[in-house]
């Protein structure tokens, strides 16, 4: 984060030097800061409402999906959040979930219908715990700020390079010729440095941004393990999500991508190695780390497991690594039946219909009629027993 800010400020400084002469460094700084501030104000004032609307998320209450609501409330209690996050469902078969909200008081959690259809209770709990950890660590604010900084850097260098291109096309001489011959040469060097900075800074910013995003993912995984005391839940959820064949989410953009539990952009091939240009660590590695946590569920245990699996230094900030005794819990018994999964899918379909204003009617012959909201007549005929049923409301 601080590194990205440094990149932004340095870029502004060099562009200022190159563009406006030796005194222009400060002016460049001011421009860089202004761009950053304006972008930040826009995105912070727009808030998560736009994001949720863009992903076509529908709010749900306890009545619509008691289990989802309960699981979120459980995690809210475990994390000690000051308020219950708002819950949304996205009607999309790709299993995924994300959290938004600048602070823990006004957070929201959204899950896709595909996720609800596939996971059992423990796995759902793991995924929700991951999202609640994002909220608890204020990752949404963190990643948004970093994203804006990235945007500012890209924008600034783009403007500069374009400006250079056009001014050289028209052959216009700029103010810096006033400095005299010696000054002009120094100016030329400055200009070259500025161009180099404008080309390199966005690349560096991208790499820093992705590294930051991946680190926050690991941290949220560690938080999820600590909240649930059951890393296996999240591990098997991640595995299920990774093996899913449905097409990628229809409503994602690059800015919100780090907030999802797994990268919403599907790649042609699953890369095994840690990838420098990805917002998320490889799922196989995340699963391995979680499964390797045999001693306990604290941040320290996760960090140890991380070092063992990846053979690198830990990504967990040292302040979280206090020694604490956090015992793992056992799995709750789960029935693994195919039939059950199909039923679960059908139920999720019904939930989506209820969210979208469908009316449910059970005929005396036992057939369940699902009536769309644009059905205008006040009577409906049962397709099985041909009885006419009244439609109230």
């Amino acid at each position, binding site marked *: 984060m601080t590194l990205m800010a440094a990149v932004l400020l340095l870029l502004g400084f060099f562009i200022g030097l190159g563009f406006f002469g030796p005194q222009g460094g400060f002016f460049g700084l001011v421009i860089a800061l202004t761009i950053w501030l304006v972008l930040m104000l826009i995105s912070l004032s727009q808030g998560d409402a736009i994001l949720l609307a863009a992903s076509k998320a529908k709010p749900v209450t306890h009545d619509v999906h*008691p*289990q989802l609501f*309960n*699981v979120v*409330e*459980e*995690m809210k*209690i*475990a*994390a*000690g959040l000051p308020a219950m996050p708002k819950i949304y469902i996205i009607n999309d078969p790709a299993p995924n979930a994300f959290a938004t909200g600048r602070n823990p008081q006004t957070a929201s959690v959204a899950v896709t219908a595909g996720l609800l259809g596939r996971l059992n*209770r423990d796995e759902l*709990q793991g995924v929700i715990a991951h999202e609640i950890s994002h909220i608890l660590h204020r990752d949404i604010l963190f990643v948004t700020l970093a994203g804006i900084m990235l945007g500012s850097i890209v924008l600034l260098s783009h403007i500069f390079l374009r400006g250079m291109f056009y001014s050289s096309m028209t052959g216009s001489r700029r103010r810096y010729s006033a400095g005299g011959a010696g000054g002009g040469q120094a100016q030329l060097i400055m200009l070259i440095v500025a161009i180099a900075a404008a080309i390199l800074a966005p690349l560096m910013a991208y790499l820093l941004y992705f590294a930051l995003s991946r680190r926050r993912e690991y941290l949220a995984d560690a938080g999820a393990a600590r*909240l649930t*005391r059951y890393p296996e839940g999240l591990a098997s959820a991640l595995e299920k999500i990774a093996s899913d064949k449905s097409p990628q989410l229809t409503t994602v953009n690059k800015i919100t991508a780090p907030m999802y539990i797994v990268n919403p952009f599907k790649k042609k091939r699953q890369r095994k190695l840690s990838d420098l240009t990805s917002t998320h660590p490889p799922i196989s590695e995340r699963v391995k780390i979680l499964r390797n946590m045999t001693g306990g569920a604290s941040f320290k245990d996760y960090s140890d497991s991380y070092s063992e699996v990846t053979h690198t230094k830990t990504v967990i900030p040292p302040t979280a690594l206090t020694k604490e005794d956090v*015992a793992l*819990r*056992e799995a*709750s*018994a*789960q*029935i693994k039946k195919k039939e059950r999964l199909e039923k679960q899918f059908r139920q999720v379909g019904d939930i989506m219909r209820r969210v979208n204003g469908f009316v449910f009617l059970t005929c005396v012959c036992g057939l369940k009629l699902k009536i769309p909201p644009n059905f205008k007549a006040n009577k409906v005929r049962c397709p099985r027993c041909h009885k006419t049923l009244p439609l109230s409301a």
Partner: protein
Amino acid sequence: MPALIVVAVIVVLLIISVIGVYNALIRLRNQVDNSWSQIDVQLKRRHDLIPNLVETAKGYMKHERETFEAITNARSQAMGAKTVSEASKAEGALGETLSRFMLVVENYPDLKANQNFLAVQEELTSTENKISFARQSYNDQVLFFNNKIQMFPSNIVANMFNFGKRDFFELESAAEREVPKVSFS
């Protein structure tokens, strides 16, 4: 004269730091109380759910009078508990009775297919989980608070204003200590 100023500054600094520590202790104590009330809310909710559960299951389980009686007794004992340690014991016993009941339920497939029962079951599972998560967070807070009032220098302020240690909320039986699990489906 300069010595007087130095003494005055030291006294003022001391008073400020005492106020700071005192406020921190109050905040921690309130957090502990708040987490305790979270457990309390969930325990009450479990008490409220039990009649519902018994009512739904009764029609299907004609020959399990003893099980129902055990649940009802455990519930009234838990509701009558006064102190934290008493409550831990009674609630632990109630949790155990409930998980035994859920094992018995496995023998009644009709009951397990009943929509109302499934709904009560989901609520009960979730309440059990909420109890254990609330307990988890309460114990974390208590540990933090107890450490604070025992460690130097905050222990001086704690003694001055009579901050007492808090009890952990442990469930009594060995089986329940691992995890209060009523797990179905």
